[in-house]
């Protein structure tokens, strides 16, 4: 109430003297700012975190519009372009004008190694075009269209090269991004739900329930995750449809994922439960539900968001690891992990280093999430220092 009054007073004085309003110092704004504003200000001061957040948003948008962004579908095969290197894109035409274009590719068989060697055929020049018509796809699953962001007429363009089944790696990476990036969100959503409910029960009610839940968490935390996930996902039938497999893998990864969040929730609830305002609410006869949702949860939402931000990349990595060793997402579906299966063979990678590009995407995503998480952690407690 008093806060509302003071705001009303300040706006009144501000109306009276317009100059004073201008002079309203940063300090004053700091005092009137809401918790959310304070967090936002602190977050935006963390340059790496803002950078990470922006790039991640772009990545997720790219995954969402993967069909439009990539020139081909993920399993279009290009006869005669097996394991072709990334197509170099040239920018200045031979006659001097600016125009992105590529040369045609020609290949010949190396008689010694029996490998195809690709060279540019500078006699054939294909301009790079934007919003070209290509393969038909369903835009966001809503309507059919055949317009792609870029493409080349007359010759194929492989921004990241092709794999040994002559499919375009660039298109496959964006198709894989859909699964790899979303599994982090879905998985964290599942472990978040489990973690908040079980951690909340454990912290709020305490006693035997608390002990039981804590022992389960101790037990789960003591098991090395990967061997457990390997055996669990080996139990899934290989012939399940992609969507079913996707959710099964997500649930398997969440089996251990919730424990960390539950610990955070429990610790915070134990701490906040002893606060005066909670005791006051209990004294006033508020229901358990109201105390939890109105008085306890808001007290640590920011901490939860931080933990979640750090859980997402862990989830993405675990999916990549499982799919990489062949126990995760099954072909024909692609994720970054399944794309990296091709990179398991060292000699293949030595000849086609572009097969490692999906790894760079995974590493970049994980590091960016860590940037954001770090910034959020600093911002979560705006009154600190």
């Amino acid at each position, binding site marked *: 109430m008093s806060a509302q009054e003071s705001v009303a007073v300040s706006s009144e004085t501000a109306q009276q003297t317009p100059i004073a309003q201008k002079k309203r110092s940063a300090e004053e704004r700091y005092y009137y700012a809401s918790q959310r504003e304070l967090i936002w200000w602190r977050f935006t001061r963390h340059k790496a975190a803002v950078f990470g957040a922006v790039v991640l948003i772009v990545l997720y948008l790219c995954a969402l519009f993967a069909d439009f962004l990539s020139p081909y579908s993920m399993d279009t095969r290009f006869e005669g372009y097996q394991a072709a290197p990334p197509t170099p894109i040239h920018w200045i035409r031979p006659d001097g004008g600016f125009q992105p274009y590529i040369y045609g590719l020609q290949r010949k068989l190396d008689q010694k190694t029996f490998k195809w060697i690709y060279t540019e055929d500078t006699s054939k020049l294909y301009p790079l075009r934007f919003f070209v018509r290509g393969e038909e796809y369903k835009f966001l699953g809503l309507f059919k269209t055949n317009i792609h962001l870029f493409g080349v007429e007359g010759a194929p363009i492989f921004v990241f090269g092709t794999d040994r089944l002559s499919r375009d790696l660039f298109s496959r990476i964006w198709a894989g991004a859909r699964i790899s990036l979303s599994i982090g969100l879905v998985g964290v959503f599942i472990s978040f739900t489990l973690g908040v409910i079980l951690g909340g029960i454990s912290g709020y009610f305490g006693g035997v329930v608390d002990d039981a839940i804590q022992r389960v968490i101790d037990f789960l935390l*003591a098991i*090395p995750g*990967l061997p457990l996930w*390997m*055996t669990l996902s080996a139990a899934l039938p290989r012939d399940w449809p992609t969507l079913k497999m996707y959710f099964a893998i997500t649930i398997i990864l969440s089996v251990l994922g919730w424990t960390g969040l539950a610990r955070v929730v429990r610790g915070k609830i134990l701490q906040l439960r002893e606060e005066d305002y909670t005791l006051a609410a209990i004294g006033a006869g508020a229901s358990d539900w109201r105390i939890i949702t109105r008085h306890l949860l808001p007290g640590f939402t920011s901490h939860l968001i931080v933990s979640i931000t750090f859980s997402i990349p862990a989830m993405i990595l675990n999916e990549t690891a499982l799919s990489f060793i062949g126990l995760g997402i099954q072909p024909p579906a692609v994720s970054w992990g399944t794309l990296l299966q091709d990179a398991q063979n060292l000699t293949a990678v030595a000849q086609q280093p572009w097969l490692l590009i999906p790894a760079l995407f995974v*590493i970049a995503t994980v590091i960016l999430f860590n940037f954001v998480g770090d910034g959020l952690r600093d911002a979560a407690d705006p009154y600190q220092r």
Partner: protein
Amino acid sequence: MLLYIIRRLLMLIPILILMSMVAFFLIELPPGDYVSFRIQQLKMSGVEVSEDEAQRLMIQFGLDKPLPLRYWQWVSGIVLRGNWGWSLQWNKSVNEILSERIPMTMVISFSALIFSWMIAVPIGIYSATHKYSIGDYLFTFLGFIGVATPGFLLALIMAWLLFTQLGFSALGLFSKEYLDAPWSWAKFVDLLKHLWLPLILVGLSNTAGTIRVVRNNLLDELNKQYVITARAKGLSEWKLLFKYPVRMAINPLLSTVSWVLPGLVSSTVLIDIVLSLQTVGPVLLRATLAQDMYLAGSIVLILSALTVIGALIGDILLVLVDPRIRFGRLAK
């Protein structure tokens, strides 16, 4: 003290029993069993398998018995005779397959832990004593990247770089000529040549995390009054640093063993698969794919059990090193 250790050891028993159950039933989860896998394999190579033949295989492998009975046979074999069962896929006893591989995996996990401390503690001390220097910023940045970079993907990239740039194949733990050779000095040296890469990769994220912990703890310690007093009394900077603050700063490392170790074992398994080392990682992968349940179950159980025991050792060491910790409180 002894009482504390005994109590902790007793608490291990229910955990181990639970782990053995989880391990066994996990392996039993997949629809089908080793026999159906085998029959499918035979069919693919063009051999027809009759019903009788399948039945005979089932009986031969003991798969016709009910689940609890098989579990009991497996567990009692382990406890009473130290017999981990029979690998159907390798047609060897599990003991024989794992006798060299399990120690190797644990050696890699534990040495990665020690190794990461050996690197991280000096860097942490340097960063804390040279706060906000260029070196500190550099290490903080590298540590940040290190925490986030997944070891197994880095393993892929490193293996490729070493192979193409230096012609060094990082795959495996031994060069070809030593693979089946008996242990000798030359074989040991050869092992070390291959071991450094997995050690760095497995320990990577822990190294980076430890640098942060040591730096922050040491900074806290250095601001305390006893340090100021010691300095005022004219103690040499070097002695001042190592007498108490550093000891205080590295104490928490022992208490983190219990939750760092499972992660280290996981990443060892994964990196071993990537670099195809002669450890349990690749064996576990093949065993889970082939539903070779005794082998896979044994590996999961042994790895989990050793992890729990390692964590226990960490706790006991913590009590020994830090006299402030009272057994009663910790045991509670």
